């Protein structure tokens, strides 16, 4: 019976390997949505300020800190969004920010807005403040990149 053990394992491996078929690439590819616990930032989170430029922030280090961010309502019912960004470096920085607005169903209703330039002195803070054009807005998504 001991002799049968390697044979069993060998057969088992062959069967398992046989199941792994090479996929055939043909036709249009559906868009992908990355949902993987190892990449928690690979998806979009509403009501968040994100830095999309690796020159400004990587997993290990960052030149900026997003100190405050939030939203409120204007008297006309449109949404006001703000983000306070701190320059962590001892150099002046120029960054750009833009916003996209979504309704309560997370359907995009506006944007993206044009990039707005923000000048940050060394170690200082700067603010990005903007408003939605429409009143039926429930969520925002602010992106920041290095100015160009």
């Amino acid at each position, binding site marked *: 019976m001991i002799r049968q053990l390697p044979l069993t394992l060998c057969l088992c491996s062959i069967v398992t390997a046989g199941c792994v078929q090479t996929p055939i690439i043909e036709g249009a590819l559906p868009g992908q949505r990355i949902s993987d616990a190892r990449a928690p930032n690979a998806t979009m989170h509403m009501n968040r300020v994100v830095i999309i430029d690796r020159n400004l922030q990587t997993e290990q280090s960052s030149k900026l800190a997003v100190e405050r961010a939030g939203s409120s309502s204007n008297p*006309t019912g449109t949404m006001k969004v703000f983000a306070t960004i701190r320059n962590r470096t001892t150099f002046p920085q120029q960054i750009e920010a833009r916003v996209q607005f979504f309704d309560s169903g997370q359907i995009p209703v506006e944007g993206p807005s*044009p990039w707005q330039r923000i000048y940050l002195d060394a170690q200082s803070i700067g603010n990005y403040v*903007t408003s939605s054009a429409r009143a039926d807005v429930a969520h925002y998504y602010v992106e920041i990149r290095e100015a160009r």
Partner: protein
Amino acid sequence: MKILTLITTPLAILAMAGCASAPYNPANNTAGRATVYEDVRSSGRVQGIGIESQDIASMTDKMMRDMLANPILAGRSPSPRIIVDSEYFRNESSSRINKNLITDRLRIDLNRAANGRMVFVGRHFSDMVAKERDLKRSGMVDGGTIRSTAAQAGGDFRLGGRIASLDALDPNSGTQSRWQQITFEMVDLELGTIVWSGIYEMKKSAQNDIIYR
């Protein structure tokens, strides 16, 4: 031993299945195909110290959002009639620019976003409207299907503004800098008061070897 075989075989299969976890699909992080098109909202390959597409897109968007957040302009009932054109929007700067690029974009962005909260009077089309009204009233054409009015619409507010600049030139290096200030003001067309103001400014410096046409 038969029992041992029965135990080890499923274990071996499970172990192999465990190795086959879903692969992480990394991004194909390479540049896209080269093209002559550029994003009008970002700086392009040809850059100078004048007013460029990204400046116009940025300033009109900022003014549009600010106006729509203002209850004097966007919170009235009935909706105010607004004239946005380049008639009273002056270019006093050293930048060569077609002012209609700014006022047309602002009016169209506002009209699309306002969704009835503001009504826009096409004063720059008034001669077109006058000609058609004359044709209708002379009997040359019929009255159309919408309605007839005693006169064309009068405006409640009208955009005025100014593009101004201050230039500096370093003759040694040929570097030129230009500070540009663009002001936008909405004027009450009865009282003459300014009910809303907006300002957009920028300063650029470069070897000014770009020609704007």
